[in-house]
C-alpha cells in the first residue's frame, strides 16, 4: 500500500543526486513545499505567511546529509483533537502533548529526572522569598510565520489562561498568582509574581506559549471555537502545522528553522497523526504497516502486537488513572455510606485483573506510588458485597417493592446515570458494574458519549446533571486536587465531585503552600486517608500506557513525562531495511 514509509537508506550520500540517478540507494524524497490552505478568512493570510516562511527557511536550512533525516512517521491515536491545537482551549492528553512537544514551545521542559530544564527560557531566577520568578527568553525562536517569539507572547498566553472567560481548564495552576501576575520586563524577559507556594515550576513546562500577534484580538470567550486551532494553528515548536482532515488526521511538517540548541530540525520530515478509534484496529494497522506508532493499546491488543515481528511494544508507567466519580449533589450519592458501599460492592482487584492484567496497579487515591507523597500504608475499602448491603440498609436504602432495586423512604430508587466515553475498557467496566452493583440492589442508566463531550458534560459548573461517570485522569507531577474536592471547586471545571468537607478543605488549603516536602509528607498521608474515608471517587487503577512501535523507528523515548516528549529525535533506523 502506498504509504510514505521510507525505504531505509543503505548508505549515505547526497540524497538528491542519488534520487535523481534513480539508484537503489536511500530514497527519501524531499517533500513538496508546505502548502497550508484554508477558506477561512482569518487563516488565509496566516497560511500564506507560514508557507512563505517555511519555503524560505527550507531553502536556508537544507536537510542535512545525515541518513537519519527524512521520512514520515504515522502515529495513530483514538481521538481527534477537536478543539484544535490551541493550548488555551485544549484539555485532552494527546493533543496537549502534541502542543507541548511538537507544535508549540513551553518556557521550560522536564528533563528525565522530572526537574525543569531550559527551553524557550534560557535561564530563570526564582526570588528567594518565593514570591516571584523571572525568565530570560531565547531570542532565536520564531513563530512559524516568521515573527519572533517575545515576552509579549508569554504575557499574553498566561493572562489569557488566567482569565476565567477563556475557560482554560487548568486555571487552578494559578491559584496563588496575583491578579496582574505576569509582566514583560523587556522583549525577552518575563516576571511572574505570586504568593509563595509549593512546586512553582510545574506550570511552566505544561503551558504552551501562544502567538499574541495572531490571537491578541480574539476575545477570550471566542477562543474555544476559533479557527486558529483547527485551520491554521501557528506555533514556534519543532513541527509546523500542514493539514487537518476533520475526524481523520493531522499532518505536521518539520520546522527547518528550529534553533540548533533546542535540537534543530527534527529528523522526520513529516509527522502524521491518524484518528483510529478502535484499539484493535490501531494494533492491526501497526501490524499491517499502515501506521508506525499505535498509541494507547488495550492489553489484549498490546499482547498481540508484542508477538509480531517488526513491531515492538513500549509499556511504561503513565500518570493516568481510571476512576468512577460520584456526583455528591444527588440525594443518594451525597451520603458517604452509599459511596463507600458502592466501592465495596465492586471487586476492584478482579476488575484490574480482567481489564489490565499485568499492565496496571491498584490505587486508592489520586496520589500514585511513584509520587514522593505516596502513603504506602494506605488501606482502601475492601471488596465486601455483604458489608455494602448492610451499609446501604443502614443508610436507609432498602428494596421496598421487591424489584431488586433499593428505595429510600420516599420511594425513590437508588438509580443514577452513568456517563462514560466510548472505549472498550470503560464500557466493559460499566458492564461489570451493572452486575456487581445490581447484586447489592443499585441500578444505573448508562450513557456513552465521546471523550470531548464527556469532558464538556462534566466540566460545566452550571449544569451537573450526571450521577456518576467513569473517567481517566492524568495529573501533573505536582498533585493539587483542590480543583476536584475543595468545597469552593463546586463552581470550577474539575469540581465534578466537589465535597463539602471542612477537614478536606483544610488539607487542600494547606498542602499547596508547604514548600518543604518533609514537612508536607504527614499531611499528605492524612489527606489520602481522608479521601479513602470520603470516597468521592471509587479509584480503580493506574494504567501502564501501552504503545506499539514499528521496530525500525529509533530514538523513541516514552515515559511518565509523556509519549511524544522527544518526537523531533525519532528517526528511521538507517541500519535496517
Amino acid at each position, binding site marked *: 500500500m502506498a504509504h510514505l514509509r521510507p525505504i531505509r537508506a543503505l548508505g549515505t550520500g547526497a540524497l538528491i543526486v542519488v534520487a535523481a540517478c534513480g539508484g537503489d540507494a536511500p530514497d527519501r524524497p524531499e517533500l513538496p513545499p508546505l502548502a497550508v490552505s484554508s477558506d477561512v478568512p482569518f487563516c488565509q493570510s496566516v497560511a500564506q505567511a507560514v508557507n512563505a516562511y517555511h519555503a524560505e527557511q527550507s531553502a536556508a536550512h537544507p536537510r542535512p546529509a545525515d541518513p537519519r533525516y527524512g521520512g514520515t512517521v504515522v502515529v495513530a491515536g483514538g481521538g481527534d483533537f477537536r478543539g484544535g491545537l490551541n493550548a488555551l482551549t485544549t484539555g485532552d492528553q494527546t493533543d496537549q502533548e502534541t502542543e507541548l512537544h511538537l507544535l508549540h514551545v513551553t518556557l521550560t521542559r522536564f528533563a528525565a529526572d522530572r526537574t525543569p530544564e531550559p527551553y524557550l527560557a534560557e535561564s530563570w531566577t526564582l526570588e528567594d522569598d518565593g514570591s516571584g520568578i523571572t525568565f530570560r527568553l531565547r531570542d532565536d525562536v520564531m513563530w512559524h510565520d516568521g515573527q519572533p517569539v517575545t515576552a509579549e507572547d508569554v504575557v499574553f498566553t498566561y493572562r489569557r489562561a488566567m482569565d476565567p472567560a477563556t475557560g482554560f481548564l487548568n486555571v487552578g495552576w494559578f491559584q496563588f498568582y496575583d491578579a496582574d501576575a505576569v509582566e514583560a520586563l523587556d522583549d525577552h524577559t518575563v516576571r511572574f509574581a505570586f504568593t509563595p507556594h509549593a512546586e512553582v515550576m510545574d506550570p511552566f513546562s505544561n503551558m504552551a506559549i501562544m502567538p499574541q500577534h495572531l490571537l491578541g484580538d480574539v476575545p477570550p470567550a471566542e477562543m474555544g471555537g476559533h479557527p486558529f486551532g483547527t485551520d491554521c494553528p501557528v506555533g514556534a515548536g519543532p513541527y509546523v502545522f500542514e493539514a487537518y482532515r476533520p475526524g481523520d488526521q493531522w499532518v505536521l511538517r518539520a520546522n527547518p528553522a528550529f534553533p540548533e540548541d533546542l535540537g534543530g530540525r527534527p529528523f522526520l520530515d513529516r509527522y502524521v497523526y491518524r484518528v483510529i478509534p478502535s484499539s*484493535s484496529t490501531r494494533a492491526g494497522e501497526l501490524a499491517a504497516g499502515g501506521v508506525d506508532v499505535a498509541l494507547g493499546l488495550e492489553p*489484549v491488543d498490546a499482547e498481540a502486537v508484542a508477538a509480531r515481528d517488526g513491531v515492538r511494544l513500549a509499556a511504561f508507567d503513565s500518570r493516568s488513572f481510571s476512576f468512577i466519580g460520584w456526583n455528591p449533589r444527588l440525594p443518594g450519592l451525597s451520603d458517604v455510606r452509599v459511596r463507600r458501599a458502592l466501592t465495596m460492592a465492586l471487586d476492584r482487584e*478482579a476488575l484490574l485483573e*480482567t481489564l489490565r492484567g499485568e499492565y496496571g496497579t491498584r490505587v486508592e487515591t489520586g496520589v500514585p506510588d511513584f509520587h514522593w507523597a505516596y502513603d504506602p500504608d494506605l488501606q482502601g475499602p475492601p471488596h465486601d458485597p455483604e458489608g455494602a448491603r448492610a451499609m446501604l440498609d443502614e443508610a436507609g436504602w432498602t428494596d421496598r417493592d421487591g424489584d431488586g432495586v433499593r428505595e429510600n423512604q420516599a420511594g425513590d430508587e437508588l438509580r443514577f446515570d452513568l456517563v462514560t466515553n466510548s472505549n472498550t475498557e470503560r464500557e*466493559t467496566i460499566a*458492564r461489570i458494574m*451493572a*452486575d456487581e452493583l445490581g*447484586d447489592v440492589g443499585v441500578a444505573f442508566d448508562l450513557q456513552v458519549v465521546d471523550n470531548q463531550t464527556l469532558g464538556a458534560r462534566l466540566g460545566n459548573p452550571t449544569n451537573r446533571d450526571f450521577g456518576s461517570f467513569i473517567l481517566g485522569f492524568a495529573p501533573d507531577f505536582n498533585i493539587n486536587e483542590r480543583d476536584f474536592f475543595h468545597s469552593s471547586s463546586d463552581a470550577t471545571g474539575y469540581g465534578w465531585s466537589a465535597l463539602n468537607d471542612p477537614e478536606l478543605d483544610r488539607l487542600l488549603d494547606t498542602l499547596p503552600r508547604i514548600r518543604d516536602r518533609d514537612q508536607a509528607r504527614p499531611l499528605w498521608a492524612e489527606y489520602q486517608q481522608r479521601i479513602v474515608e470520603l470516597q468521592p471517587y471509587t479509584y480503580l487503577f493506574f494504567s501502564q500506557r501501552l504503545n506499539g512501535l514499528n521496530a525500525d523507528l529509533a530514538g523513541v523515548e516514552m515515559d511518565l513525562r509523556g509519549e511524544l516528549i522527544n518526537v523531533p529525535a525519532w528517526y528511521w533506523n538507517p541500519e535496517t531495511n
Partner: protein
Amino acid sequence: MQSVARHQRGGVGLSVFLPGAPQILAGRVAEGLLALMPWLSAILLLVLRADLVSSQLGEGSTVGRASMALLAAAGLAWAWSLRDVSTPPEAGAGQGAWVRIVRDPWAGIGLAILLFFAGLSLLGPPLLLPEDPGRTQTTEEGFLPPSMDHPMGTDNAKSDVFERFLDGARVTLGIGLLAGLGGALIGVTLGAWAGFTGGWVDRVVMRCVDFFIALPKLVLLIALAALYDLGPVTLALFIAFVQWPALARIVRAEAVALAQREFVHALRAFGVSERRILFRHVLPNAQGVILVGTALAVANALLIEAGLSFLGLGLDSASWGRLIKDGGALFPHWWVGGFAGMSLVLVVVALNLVADAVRDVFDPRADVTV
C-alpha cells in the same frame, strides 16, 4: 402416493425412538423437525442436566416450569408422530394452503429454525444456565474459546458468551417480533382501509407511504435513537413505525384489486356493511400477502434492532447486535460475535424462506419486496 408407502413401512418403529423422523423421510421436513426438535432437546437436557431437572421438576420455579414445558412438548411430539404414521393420510386429499406451506421443505427448515430459536430463548436461560438469568457469569479467564464449560467461550470481560447470547436472543427476537407485528398491524390496517375505501383516504395514505418509502429510514431511526431515551416498547414502536409503509402498499394493492371483484359488489348488494366486507371478506383473501409482508417486516425489524445495538444505540441490555459489536473484528476471538452474527442471519433467512414459501403457495406471481 409414494410418501404413503414410505410412511407406513417401518414408520411406527422409527417413531417410537425418533418421533418426526418418518415424516422427514417422507419429505415433510417441517412437521418432522417440529416434532423431532423438542424430543431431542428433552433427551439432551435429561442427559446433561438430569440432576437439575429432577430436583426442580414440579417445583414452581422457572427451571421447573421450563422443564415441564419441554417434557410436555416432547411427549406431545411423540404421541403425534405415532398417531400420524399409523393413520395413512387420505391420498391426494385437498391440501389447504397451510398444509402446503408446512410441507414445503424450505419453509419447513425455516419454521424449524424459528422454533429452535424461540425455544432456546424461552427455555434456554432457566434450563441451560447455572445461575439466575440477568447476572452475567464471571469466569476465570477472558477470551476462552468455546468449550464444554462455556459453549460459546468467554469475552473480554470474562463473561460467558452463551449467557449473553441467550439474553440477547430474547431482546433481539422479542423486539424484532414486537416491532414487526406492530408494523404489520399498522400497515395492514392502513393499506386495507386506503385500498378498500379509495378516494381521498387512499390518496393521502399512499402519499404518506411514498414519502416514508423514499426516506432513509434507518438513518432517521439512528437520529431518533440518539435523541430519545428508548425503552424496549418505545424502541419497538419506533421500528414498527418505519415498517408499515411497505406493507401498507402491498396490502392496498391487494385490497384495490379485491374491491373491484364481483363478489364484493354482490355483498354490497346484499346490504352487508362495508366494515364487515373489509374484515370478513377482503382481508382474508389477502392473507397471503399479509403473511409474507409480516414475515418480512419481522425480519427487517430484527435487522434494524441488531443494527441499532451494533451502533451502540439500542437498549442498554444485551442484544445480538451488541454482542457483534463487542466481538469487533472477527479474529482472533471469533466466538464473541460470531454466534450472534450467524444466528441473526439464520433467523432472518428462516423468515425469508417461510415468506417465499407462503408467497409461492398463495400467489406465485406476486413480488413482494419490503
